[in-house]
């Protein structure tokens, strides 16, 4: 890439547009996927009117929300009320800049990487940026000037803060094993090790995913927006596009959590058999599948589990949620961290 304009401006710009569009579309279709899967779990059919078998439903929903009246409560704190959805949706989308969807490949002679950038502190970046989202939730809840919203916002703040700790601790175990903070390097380390980190890090994997569900406010941890208690939680007063932003952010965050879980624990874009099973994965049928497809497939599996949870579990109560976070997950993840560190020391010889 001789021309710096191409290398530093054009290529990243194209990538940004592609990733943004893909993520927004993915989030929109995640809602469709959820409605369909949930419907089949609940002996219903789900959306089936817009387009063939309802496939255009998310587009219709987005259009509807775009043209809907945007109501701002009279006594809301206008600026903060406006900032809330922005603060939620921007971090959710920014995180995608460091998620590697596949390995580098050649296109028209250029080497193209299917990710925006590979930051050497990728994990820290993700943890840092995604924590900003909590401000959007709490500020939006507070600015609405509605008691239900405020309770939802406060619940959310407490929940996100307490579940970030075990989540971070479980991510650290992966760092120990991979010896890197870069997401690309972590995947490559799994390739070299010939084993996905889900096997040595099964406890961390479990904690990470459960905390991820809590971080995205999904059932059974969907207290901030517990419909039956707090009407709609922090976004009770939001309508139109602002509501759509909260909605988009929730689904984008689910995709984020699933992507990171895929990268950290399920070998990212690697095919599903460790290298020593060469006989199997060298099968032409499997080798033919592009790496990015594996990535999407694994991510979709996580997203399915999200929906499955929602179809199955009742909701925790607020204090029980806190108990679970502080009294179970944090101690377990601390012990697990030490166990993994010991294992790396003994087996890895570092």
């Amino acid at each position, binding site marked *: 890439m001789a021309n710096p304009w191409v290398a530093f401006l054009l290529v990243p710009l194209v990538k940004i547009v592609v990733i943004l569009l893909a993520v927004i579309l993915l989030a929109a279709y995640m809602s469709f996927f959820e409605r369909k899967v*949930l419907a089949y*779990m*609940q*002996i*219903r059919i789900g959306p089936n009117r817009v387009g063939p078998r309802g496939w255009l439903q998310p587009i219709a929903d987005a259009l509807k929300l775009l043209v809907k009246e945007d109501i701002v409560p009279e006594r809301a704190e206008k600026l903060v009320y406006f900032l809330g959805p922005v603060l939620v949706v921007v971090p959710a989308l920014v995180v995608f800049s460091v998620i590697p969807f596949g390995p580098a490949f050649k296109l028209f002679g250029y080497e193209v990487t299917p990710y925006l950038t590979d930051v050497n502190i990728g994990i820290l970046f993700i943890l840092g940026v995604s924590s900003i989202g909590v401000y959007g939730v709490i500020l939006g809840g507070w600015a609405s000037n509605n*008691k*239900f919203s405020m*309770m939802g916002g406060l*619940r959310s703040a407490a929940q996100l803060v307490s579940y970030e700790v075990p989540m971070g601790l479980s991510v650290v175990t992966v760092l120990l094993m991979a010896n890197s903070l870069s997401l690309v390097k972590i995947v490559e380390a799994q390739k070299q090790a010939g084993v996905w980190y889900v096997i040595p890090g099964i406890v961390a994997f479990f904690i990470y995913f459960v905390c991820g569900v809590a971080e995205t406010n999904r*059932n*059974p941890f*969907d*207290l901030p927006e*517990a*419909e*039956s*208690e*707090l*009407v709609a939680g922090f976004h009770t007063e939001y309508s139109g596009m602002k509501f759509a932003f909260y909605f988009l952010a929730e689904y984008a965050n689910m995709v984020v959590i699933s992507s990171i879980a895929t990268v950290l624990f399920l070998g990212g874009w690697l095919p599903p058999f460790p290298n020593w099973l060469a006989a199997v994965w060298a099968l032409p049928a499997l080798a033919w599948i592009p790496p990015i497809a594996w990535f999407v497939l694994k991510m979709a599996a996580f997203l399915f589990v999200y929906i499955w949870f*929602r*179809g*199955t*579990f*009742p*909701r*925790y*109560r*607020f*204090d*029980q949620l806190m108990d679970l976070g502080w009294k179970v997950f944090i101690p377990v993840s601390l012990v697990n961290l030490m166990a993994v560190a010991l294992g790396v020391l003994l087996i890895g010889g570092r």
Partner: protein
Amino acid sequence: MGNLETLKPFPDSEEMEISFGPQHPATHGVLRVLLRLDGERIVDAKPVIGYLHRGTEKIFERETYNGAIPHTDRLDYTAAATNNQALVGAVEKIMGVTVPPRASAIRVMLAELQRIASHTIWLGTHALDIGAQSPFFYTFEEREKVLDLFEEYCGARLTLNSMRVGGQPYDLTDGWVDRCRTFVDQFPARVAEWERLLTTNRIWKLRTVGVGVISAANAIEWGLTGPPLRGSGVKWDIRKVFPYDRYDEYDFEIPVGANGDTYDRYLVRMEEMRQSVRIIKQCLAKLPDGPVMAKVPKVIKPPKGEAYFSVESPKGELGFYVVSDGGAHPYRLHVRPACFINLQALPEMVRGLLVADLIAVIGTLDIVLGEIDR
């Protein structure tokens, strides 16, 4: 409206007052609860009712006795059959009419099917309130089957208007017995399915065990009836203690709880559905032949007098108190609603709990505002 003055002002405290309802997804209609919260903890709660008041008792006074029956459908609109049963029972008691055996059996079947239908709604909404979505759809599937049976019998699905003073307006249609048998044969398996989803579920137990506890003594003092009373371990069921419609001829158990918490009331209602199936099966097995209507005049004019007659509705003791002046219209017709009296215990049950528990307790009391506000 609101009675805010009874909740003391609190200028210096951290407490917050919140009006929960009447338009709220979890208050089962138009119940409004004034809450005083310390954070999420409930300091005090005060149910405010009357948003669905239609003056039903006054309407009764200008109706004929049979004409009043459709209005009873609209009291507890999830259990029209038992409402019908209580009214016609009260009028028959003044008149001294005995219903033919076949009519009694049909009434019992309708009442027990209604209990199943009402409990399925309760389970679906209760679970939905606690956050489990799916049972709602599973229970409504079964409820539809019950409503199909009702529709076949009397043409209506919800507001049945299915009984008359002196007996039943219609005999069973051809094949109804078989279809009812098909339903009761498959129903226990579905109850078991729902129980698999909830009974041993860790989160379900966390949310219900020890929540909304009311002791047996307290329950009796508050006048609770139905599952809220039996959940506290009091074996009190009108079908057993004051049998009506030949309930004494059927074998069935009265399930009781031990701790008086939400979980026990859940178990009691689940078992009640099974017992209802048991009763219906006995009805079907020995369904008597004969007329379904006793000899009563076209225009019902009970002799001067008064009577109180109660039935075990799915929600508790539902009683009708009729005063007759010998005319074709009731002089006074008062309803003893189960939900209204059960709801009184709400503040007692939720004080000191969290907001999320309030939802669980409202669900476990299984209130229907149509009956509370009348």
